[in-house]
């Protein structure tokens, strides 16, 4: 890891990898929202961080000025050989209109509620399998021994990859999302095994087509033509990267919350009918995902002189804590009835996998509390949080009660 100067003032020098931000970003965001409300930094080649729900929504909906070509902030904005617009490296998340709409229409039918809801029994079995392994243990890690297995298991099955490759994917995702401070010449070669893996899987699916998302992408036609190979590959990368770390983080944060808030755990165990509301409040309060945009041109945004190619860190989790948008925004209310949260983003890039993520989150919590009606953090100090644009606990050491 390269050395970084500590942040003096997040308003003028924000860094989302600063240890204080990683450990507990909410007081920082609340402070910035009152003081700025758009924070600036010279780091990463220059960037902005809006903190109000209204501004986050405005930028998410302004595809004229803000591009999605790059969505993960790093030090090498447009390196040579970067995937070109309008597709970007992982369509449709990295695509801008009008190509975006084409790529999104390809993806959405495969992730619609009707298709996704049919996976519920499989997801339940997967959760049960991992919970069986914890039987009889008083102490275990609900992050590394449970939460982190669920979404890789689901995505692996969805893409039609061998189940034994799940561990590989966690490593790949770490590479994309966590290691943003590595210099380009060190970072790029690390992707080579992933590229080769996908090539192997695509070849295998071309030879042996089957009923999974990979075969769907290889066969789907737009305007009478199959998708370009880089489109298929990019969407597979997106599915893997966006479908694993995110949901695993949401499951982890929810279990961490329940382990540290016994009254909420008790309510959820005794009143299963509030599960739907609870899932939305977990998503609002612990929204894992922050996305980025880059400026297409110089643009004046609410008095901020944004420059072409500047980053904008689009803090959906910060928007979810804005008191102007939510009553008692800083309170976790397990049965909150009015909850217009932005955990899955806003506008045309709404998370394509949101139906699947929500299902995984609900089933993972239901199955967990079915086995363990009482549990608490065994060592609150041992909980570590992921660094980068996907926030969630990596370790959740708990003790289960009888």
């Amino acid at each position, binding site marked *: 890891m390269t050395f970084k100067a500590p942040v003096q003032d997040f308003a003028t020098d924000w860094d989302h990898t600063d240890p204080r931000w990683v450990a507990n970003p909410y007081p920082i965001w609340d402070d910035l929202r009152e003081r700025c409300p758009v924070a600036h930094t010279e780091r990463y080649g220059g960037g902005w961080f809006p903190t109000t729900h209204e501004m986050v929504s405005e930028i998410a909906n302004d595809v004229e000025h803000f591009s999605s070509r790059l969505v993960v902030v790093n030090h090498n904005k447009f390196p040579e050989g970067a995937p070109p617009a309008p597709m970007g490296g992982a369509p449709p998340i990295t695509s801008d209109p009008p190509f975006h709409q084409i790529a999104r229409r390809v993806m959405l039918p495969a992730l619609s509620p009707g298709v996704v809801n049919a996976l519920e029994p499989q997801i339940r079995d997967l959760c049960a399998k991992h919970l069986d392994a914890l039987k009889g243990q008083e102490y275990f890690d609900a992050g590394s021994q449970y939460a982190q297995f669920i979404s890789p298991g689901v995505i692996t099955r969805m893409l039609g990859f061998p189940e034994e490759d799940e561990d590989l994917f966690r490593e790949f995702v770490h590479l994309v999302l966590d290691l943003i401070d590595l210099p380009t010449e060190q970072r790029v070669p690390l992707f080579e095994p992933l590229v080769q893996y996908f090539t192997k899987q695509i070849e295998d699916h071309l030879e042996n087509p089957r009923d999974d998302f990979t075969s769907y992408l290889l066969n789907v036609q737009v305007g009478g033509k199959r998708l370009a190979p880089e489109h298929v590959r990019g969407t597979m990368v997106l599915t893997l990267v966006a479908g694993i770390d995110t949901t695993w983080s949401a499951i982890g944060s929810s279990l961490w919350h329940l382990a540290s808030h016994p009254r909420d755990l008790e309510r959820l165990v005794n009143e299963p009918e509030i599960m739907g509301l609870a899932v939305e409040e977990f998503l609002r309060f612990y929204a894992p995902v922050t996305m980025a945009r880059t400026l297409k041109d110089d643009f004046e945004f609410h008095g901020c002189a944004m420059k072409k190619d500047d980053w904008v860190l689009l803090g959906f989790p910060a928007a979810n804590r804005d008191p102007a948008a939510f009553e008692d925004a800083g309170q976790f209310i397990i049965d909150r009835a009015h909850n217009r949260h932005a955990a899955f983003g806003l506008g045309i890039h709404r998370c394509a996998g*949101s139906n699947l993520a929500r299902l995984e989150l609900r089933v993972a919590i239901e199955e967990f509390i079915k086995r363990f009606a009482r549990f608490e953090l065994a060592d609150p100090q041992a909980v570590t949080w992921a660094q980068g644009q996907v926030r969630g606990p990596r370790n959740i050491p708990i003790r289960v009660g009888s």
Partner: protein
Amino acid sequence: MKVVIDRELCQGHGRCFSIAPSIFDFDELGNGVVIGDGSLDENTVEMARLAQANCPEHAIFIEE
């Protein structure tokens, strides 16, 4: 009273048909659609209002 979804604003968050499945359904892309002509009575208007209050894109409108 009638409930409508603005198809331009809807991005398929799926909140409406989860909250009020008797009033809303989804299309092949997962975007929300109103079932039938969207007419509401005193039994259904509260559910429609609840769905409206949970739509992240403010895409649901209730016409008096």
